[in-house]
């Protein structure tokens, strides 16, 4: 058995508060890889939420545990139970210096299972990289069809690609 990666959708946006990729999750795959190579803020962090057929899921069912590793300082453990979003998944205080995040999402479309996510990131900072490794769980057993990226700061530039992971 081998595993292949298939591109589902690429999304770019400029100067927005949030951006959605709709209908990227389906019964075709159980696992997805989301890769962001552009996360650009004047100074801000990026979070994400799942979407269902009615839109963004913003209920208080997001649990996550984020290990924040700073090349320039102390590490931190950021844990949230019953939050309204996952994150952070990226950070930038240097305009137009790229971005580096990989998110693995499991069973988003399966209405019988909660949706799980793991992510890793190299953040962009003038004083060194803040790196992140994290796990998350959306405790709602329903079919999730899309992903929504958001921030409290203006997202100057973002590019995300969604891939399906399939065993053959």
């Amino acid at each position, binding site marked *: 058995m081998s595993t*292949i*990666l*298939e*591109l589902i959708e*690429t999304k770019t946006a400029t100067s927005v508060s949030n951006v959605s990729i709709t209908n990227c999750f389906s019964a075709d795959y159980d696992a997805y890889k989301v*890769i962001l*190579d552009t996360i650009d803020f004047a100074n801000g962090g990026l979070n994400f939420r799942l979407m269902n057929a009615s839109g963004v899921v913003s209920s208080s069912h997001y649990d996550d545990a984020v*290990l924040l*590793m*700073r*090349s*320039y300082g102390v*590490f931190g453990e950021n844990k949230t139970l019953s939050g309204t979003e996952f994150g952070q998944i990226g950070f930038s205080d*240097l305009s*137009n*210096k*790229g*971005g*580096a995040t*990989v998110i693995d999402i499991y069973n988003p479309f399966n209405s019988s299972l909660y949706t799980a996510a793991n992510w*890793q*990131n*190299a*953040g*962009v900072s003038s*004083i*060194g*990289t*803040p*790196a*992140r*490794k994290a796990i998350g769980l959306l405790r709602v057993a329903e079919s999730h069809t899309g992903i929504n990226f958001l921030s409290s700061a203006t997202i100057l530039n973002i590019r995300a*690609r969604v*891939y399906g992971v399939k065993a053959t």
Partner: protein
Amino acid sequence: MEAIEQVKSTTVTSAVSSVIMDGVTTDHVYMLVGKGITINTDTAYLHTRFTKVVSGASQPQTAAQYDFANLILKPDGAFENFAYPSRTEMYFANSPIGASAGESSSFVYYLFNFNNSSQYSYITIEDNVFNSTSSTAHGSQGAMQYGVAEAHNGIVITGDSTTITGGTITLYKINN
């Protein structure tokens, strides 16, 4: 359409001081997978640097611009913060590595923004090495940036007071 495309694969069959894995020529995200990497000197180290093309050849970049932050996971003690700004390289799991039978290092890196000359280059890090002092596995989970806005074409794995005697390293492009 299959999105993973193999760009280059190197299998070490005789001792070398370093292995250059170049081949990044586009703006895609790349994945670098190393497995079964062995060395000939017990307690020596392996480290990573980025490369760029200089006078037609891939050259390791040695400026003190490597910023990295990792958590070292280990079964024999407290997890360890392995984080520094402004270094000239990054070591595998901050570890002295074993050289006996069965002892090797493996890793998965994602390479971001390497081909972009106006942005920094980044990798996310997952590695697993055989720590010769602890006689068990130690592994990094983290990320690294090289804070110079210039194009890079890959990375180099270098032995510190050792040669590299085995292993396979493969570079994949993740197509858009």
